[in-house]
């Protein structure tokens, strides 16, 4: 905070520590997770590496401050600006910190210095999005009768009135989506387990001190696989998009290992935004992050982006993929078949949720839909509350599709 102390510090080392501290604060302001502990580590690292070469300083600081590859660019820019002239960034910082009242206008040239870092330092006019107004006006009718609910469950989202939509929102927020559990290789104690827990048995034996070893049992721990949702937000889906976002928010905030993506003309990962507990804030953040709302669809290209950039990172450990789209593709399904096939081959189970399936006479005629239907494990409709909860029922079951034969569990085998 104290910029004047800087001039007073004569010793080189003291100055270094101070500069590293300021640098750390710049990085923190730019959104990198830098705590006081990290700064101390950084000072230590710089002292160890020595200051003979600028490059060494760079990599020493890099080793401590950067811990994700995508932070590298930001670090790089901050480094070159800061260590060229720490003063500039200090001034920028002072604008950022509430205790200094200065406005940004007096430093136009530093803003020019590097737009990206400046963007990171000045998050712009858009403050934390306010929860959408209007909600308070609606009084929730607790005496909503069963038949009303029943009717609501069957109403298509497309044809819902504003009031019904609000009600549907609440229903979705309450919705739970239990997905099937799969066996992991870990064990937990279980009195009805099928395997002997030798460790517990030995301990139990000591407790009784006797001649018999009382058997203790264990069974494999169960866990749900990662869930990945890819949701189409193009123009043809726009009436449903909002409901699906609510749906995705309900799922995402309910469990770990969920990854959510939306796509229209390009793919956006919105997992982080949906993690926010408050649904309105979460949706506002998503709206801000995504800039291809209700535009065209390029399913093939987006799937391709997903396959190359994300599939290896989020589809590990047998993920379950929900692919929400109507299969109408602007690119005339260019490259779609190839990509959906690859997606299908890299996950445990691929479920296509298609709101168009609600029409009995719907046939996958569009080229995109045809390729999709060939490569998904299951296609389901999703257009009203009932189909959403129906989805829960299917996902809760263990998938009985093509499965490799597993070696039979041996009775009492000690792992």
């Amino acid at each position, binding site marked *: 905070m104290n910029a004047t102390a800087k001039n007073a510090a004569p010793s080189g080392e003291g100055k270094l520590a101070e500069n590293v501290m300021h640098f750390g604060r710049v990085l923190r302001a730019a959104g990198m997770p830098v705590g006081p502990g990290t700064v101390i580590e950084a000072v230590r690292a710089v002292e160890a590496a020595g200051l003979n070469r600028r490059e060494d300083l760079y990599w020493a600081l*890099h080793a401590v401050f950067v*811990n994700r*590859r995508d932070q590298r660019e930001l670090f790089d820019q901050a480094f070159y600006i800061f260590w060229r002239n720490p003063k500039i960034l200090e001034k920028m910082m002072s604008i950022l910190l509430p205790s200094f009242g200065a406005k940004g206008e007096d430093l136009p040239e530093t803003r020019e210095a590097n737009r990206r870092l400046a963007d990171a330092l000045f998050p712009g006019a858009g403050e934390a999005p306010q929860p959408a107004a209007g909600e308070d006006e609606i009084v929730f009718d607790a005496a909503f009768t069963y038949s009303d609910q029943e009717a609501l469950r069957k109403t298509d989202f497309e044809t819902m009135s504003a009031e019904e939509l609000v009600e549907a929102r609440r229903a979705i927020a309450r919705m739970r989506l239990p997905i099937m559990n799969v066996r992991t290789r870990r064990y937990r104690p279980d009195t009805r387990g099928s395997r002997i827990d030798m*460790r517990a048995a*030995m301990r139990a*034996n*000591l407790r009784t*001190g006797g001649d018999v070893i009382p058997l203790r049992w264990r069974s494999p721990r169960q866990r749900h696989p990662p869930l990945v949702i890819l949701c189409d937000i193009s123009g043809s889906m726009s009436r449903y998009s909002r409901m699906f976002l609510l749906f995705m928010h309900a799922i995402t905030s309910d469990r770990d290992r969920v990854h959510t993506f939306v796509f229209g003309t390009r793919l956006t990962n919105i997992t982080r935004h949906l993690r926010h507990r408050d649904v309105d804030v979460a949706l506002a953040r998503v709206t801000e992050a995504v800039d291809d709302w209700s535009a065209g669809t390029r399913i093939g290209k987006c799937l391709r982006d997903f396959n190359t950039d994300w599939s290896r990172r989020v589809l*590990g450990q047998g993920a379950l993929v929900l692919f929400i789209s109507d299969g109408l593709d602007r690119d005339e399904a260019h490259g779609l078949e190839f990509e959906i096939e690859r997606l299908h081959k890299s996950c445990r189970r691929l479920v296509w949720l298609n709101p168009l399936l609600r029409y009995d006479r719907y046939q996958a005629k569009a080229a995109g839909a045809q390729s999709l239907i060939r490569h998904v494990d299951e296609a389901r409709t999703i257009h009203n509350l009932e189909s959403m909860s129906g989805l829960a029922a299917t996902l809760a079951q263990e998938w009985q599709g093509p499965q490799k034969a597993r070696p039979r569990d041996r009775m009492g085998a000690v*792992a």
Partner: protein
Amino acid sequence: MGESKLSGAPNSIEGAQDLLRAGNYVADRALATTLFLALKLKRPLFLEGEAGVGKTEIANVLAATLGRSLIRLQCYEGLDAASAVYEWNYPAQMVEIRLAEAEGITDRAQLSGDIFSERFLIKRPLLRALEPDVAGPPILLIDELDRTDEPFEAYLLEVLADFQITIPEIGTVKAAEPPIVIVTSNRTREIHDALKRRCYYHWIGYPDAERELAILNLKMPGAGERLSREVVAFVQRLREEDLFKLPGIAETIDWAAALIQLDKMALDPESVNDTLGVLLKYQDDIAKIQGSEAARLLTEINVQLAAAE
């Protein structure tokens, strides 16, 4: 005090670079700096990068050049304490109980002390790494951490923070001197920040042509000058292509080895096609490059190499 035990540890960044060089590992200065810091300040080194860029190799090289033993923990989904930390030797314990019965020992405390003693402990990599070693603290390689799941990661956090492990029946085992820890990840999922914060992070990318050639010359001295140049140029060019899995350095070396076995002195379209499976590991990628595309790339790099000469 630690100086004498840490004999051979480099005192400067150049030292770290030389150390790797002595083990036939060509590192750029960035990596050498991070490694030097990790060795000097005794923090784990976290290496991330695509498959086949030499992450695991660093641990092997360090073990060889520093003369330490290498303890490797290969991670996989569902890795648990019994296979990563320790396990009791149950059959031996049962025999011991039986013997005690035969001898008429009924003192429960004594029996308990006997069968839950170090004698019956099967040590797994993490525990072994904390034990004193005559050659100095060992090198603990935690390979492909991204393959395991979050609970194990959380456990590891505890071990890496204090270098100690608690065994309820015996007590706490603490390393007199922390091992040199190298964690690698292929980034098939993001490792939690809490763990990375305790390490020095470095992303190992694909090397540039010059460094790749140096690596190839070191690893495959049998390959002729011309072949090495062509192989490196071809692989470098291939990395600019839009492929699902780009070839790493390991693939370059394998490819050169394959070509040497085929007695090739230079690349020709036919041998490229025949050996493409060594470089590319996805059928779609192979199909894309094989045939005319490979021939085109080959003429391109030949022109390029001729111009450079």
